[in-house]
């Protein structure tokens, strides 16, 4: 059975602070729009079924598995991907924390983990280890055993709290 060929549709959204637009088939996934059309390949596809979390991005400030969202559903949304975390050469505190604490090995799941970690810390600036584990439960990692991921999120929480207290 051949699916009906659908008309290309225009989409526009803000990605990492920049207004972008494109023309996509309505069935195009947000993750494919981000990767293939915008060339932002830091967001990865690990499972296409919403289980692994490698494709996690922020959509209007909330984490979203971008392989579970159509590009057209993100019409007008504000998207944050891993490419939008650092300010120029300066790493975001959560990136810095993953770096200093060996929170990544192969780095494939990392962009998604950074997003889930960041989302957790925005809601809970001082999480317990159990809360951190709960916060990143939707992101699968096969390399680290999560030991140093948890340590990294804990370190990021500390530096982000200190940054805030320091008036930054």
């Amino acid at each position, binding site marked *: *059975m*051949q*699916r009906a060929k659908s008309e290309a549709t225009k989409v526009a959204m803000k990605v990492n602070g920049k207004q972008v637009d494109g023309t996509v*088939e309505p*069935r*195009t996934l947000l993750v*494919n729009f981000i*990767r*293939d059309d915008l060339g*932002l*390949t*830091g*967001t*990865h*596809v*690990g*499972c*296409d*079924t919403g*289980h*692994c979390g*490698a494709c996690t991005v922020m959509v209007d400030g909330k984490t979203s598995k971008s392989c579970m969202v159509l590009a057209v559903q993100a019409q007008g949304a504000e998207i944050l*991907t*891993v*490419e939008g*975390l*650092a300010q120029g050469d300066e*790493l975001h505190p959560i*990136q810095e924390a*993953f*770096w*200093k604490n*060996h929170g*990544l*090995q*192969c*780095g*494939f*799941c*990392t*962009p998604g983990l*950074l997003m889930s970690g960041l989302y957790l810390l925005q809601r809970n600036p001082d999480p317990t*280890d159990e809360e951190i*584990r*709960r916060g*990143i*439960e*939707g*992101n*699968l*990692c*096969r*390399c*680290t*055993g*999560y*030991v*140093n*991921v*948890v340590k990294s999120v804990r370190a990021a929480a500390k530096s982000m709290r200190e940054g805030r207290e320091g008036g930054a």
Partner: protein
Amino acid sequence: MTVNVTTSKHREDAPEGRVEDRRLLTGKGRFVDDLKLEGQAYMGLVRSPYAHAKINGIDFSKASSSPDFIASLTGEDLLKEGVQPLSQNPWPFQKRAKRYHLAVGKARFAGEPVAAILVKNKNSIEDLIELVEVDYESLPVVTTIEESKQGNAIIYEEWGNNASLTSEVKKGDAEKAIASAAFVIRAKEGIARQAAAPIEPHAVLVAYDGKQDSYDVWATVQSVHGTRDKLASELKKPKEKFHVRVMDMGGGFGSKGAQSYPEAPLACIFARRTGLPVKWTATRSEEFLEAAAGRDEYCDITLACDKNGRIVAIKASVECDSGVTGSQAHMPTMTIETMSGPYRILNQDITVAAYVTNKMPLGPVRGAGGPEGCYFIERAVDALAKKIGLDPIEFRRRNVLRRDGPGEGEADFGLLLDTLVKSSHYEELSQWRSDLYSKFRVEGPSHSSLIAGLGVSLTGSDESEDDEDEEDWSGGSSGAESKPWQTGGGSGASAGEKWAGQPAAEAKAPWQAGGPEKSASWQNSGESAEKRTWAGASEETLGFMSETARVTLDKDGSVKVYTGSSPHGQGEETTFAQLASEELGVPLGSVTVVWGDTTLIPKGIGTYGSRSAATGGSAVVDASRKLKAQLLARASEVLGVEPNSLEMGGGGFASASRPDAVLATLADVLQKQRADEVSSSSVFTLSGLSYSSGVHLCALTLDVELGKVKIVKYFVAEDCGRMINKTIVEGQLHGGVLHAVGGALFERLAYDEEGNLLSSTFMDYNIPTALDSPDVQVFHETTPSTVTLDGAKGVGESGTNGAYAAVINALNDALSQLGTGAELNMVPATPDAVFRILNAKRVKTPAASHLLSS
């Protein structure tokens, strides 16, 4: 310019963060699926929905009417092209079979590719796959070892049966030793089929150059050289026609190793036929259907010890469900060759037989047979310890060798056990276990359903068998009293515990009564470790012992390390830079590591089998030392002094007698010699294997109501030789342990009786999440390897090897408190499996009686 040339080696502290991390953290990693070539087309694979079926015809007419359709391929097309079957690595024990990239004549497992299509639009791949009509005639299916033995269907007609591999390890007379042994246990154990499951699926991108008749191939592989060589032989073209590259890769765990997969050759054929760049990326389900899986081994084991608690014999029969023939088949052989672990067992009768079934082929998955061997023996060791009433740690102490003081080479398992007991606060854990059980007994399961268990395992091998010098091991003093198994002591050991199951008259422990029976052959078993482990080793195995490196120094002072290794998470951009920096006395920041490119690095082996730090690292050290010698020779020419009167370091040369007075910089010397770059290379071959050894301890709780297991604490005491980078070593152990925790508790590739894979997404195939994972703590002993130049021993698989056994031993320790005889030996121990074991043995819990009666 001030440079201090010191006479000692330049050692910078390991960097706080890895060199490779910055690009990976900022979304600038370069994974294969991230690449895009102008006008690239997409390959799709039509996969058999039947586990065993004759292919009567393939009709592309509907698919080819789509405007997105470009081209198609079938198995028959490959035969016409003269394509050679998928390569099988030489492994002397395995029968060989022809299997093509696309099934020819019949499909032998559900998910086997039977046709390939090339399409214009990524979104259309699956639509067009659906439009390909294949006329199948289903055949009887073989999905279990039993069915395979019975031969209700023969998978390779030319074989006449389904047996694919046999091998054995024999030593002494196991039968006789068991018959006269004081204590004997027998157990049936097994580990289900499990996936490597790297988070990045397989991908390949090929571009064809018609003028040169050559191929640019980017592929998710642990060995670009192995992939190049297979492409060349399967497509019958010279190796130089294939430029194979890999950049960043999202994990491999063996499944992207030296396997032969169909996709890269198929993409090459499409690229040549159409002139278009061809991209293929697996979906997760395709990954589960086709990427080589591991384990699927089952063991009937008998283990015997004497009245002193010394293991005297092992008899084991291992069976393996190998799926269809794969390119790598050494895993079951590895299992039996590593099964005696660190124990010196004089009588061994271990056999293995593998059978083909209608499933995707097995391949190496982190540990590659090692975790199975360790699991089989360590479960049996626990059972035997229990039978004679000895604490499992104490029982192990009596069966491992103990070194007298610092040494090099093999690990000291006695010392590792001491470290583990001390660092894990084993006595407190034992108390916690007793307390939980008391609470359970007093309050009852409906109020307090948790009980605890502790489990230990040892991973590593006794490689000291060719060590004839008994003094090295006997503690230095003379007489039987100093033998390692006699000392008994150490915190946590239950010296003096009574020997359960022994007549009262013999209840006194033998070591108290004046020493064990003399065992003359203990020190004198003639066979060498190497011979034992690598009997029948093929050329492939010799390749496994080697790695290449080239180190170059540019006149600007920058150093490049080219390695035949292929890092994909192991951090070699950092550790190899550390090694070169240390050897050459240059700053870490001036060293760049290059890998994964068959043009830049024409020869290499790759990263798998815990080989990179040990073998690849040795090649880097060797090449760096050669480069240093060359630079000293050049400097001596320029300065007119003897090379051995010079020291090199800190970017310059000085007289050995006055290291602070720099005579020339590296740049001076290169300039005077009119050299833009100097380099040295190495093809380094290890003289022996060098693997890490470890002692694991798992502490877990078992919910007797629900069958749910939670790992509360996990400890590893490890000896991986010299640690080039402690943080990276520990990361390898964390991940290795969790891989096996998943394997022990959650992961199973389940098939129905028709051979359909039931667990083809991460929903059905559960790899552990952060919530399922323990905080693994690692403690180190660092006995440098004597066969590697950097002193390192391979550590990548050690965590996985040991953790299955530690987890399941802990679970059985918990179960044993119930006194019902409930025992779990088949892995994974899912809550369902544990629940059934609990209730088969009539542990009366309210939830169970309710659930089982409904």
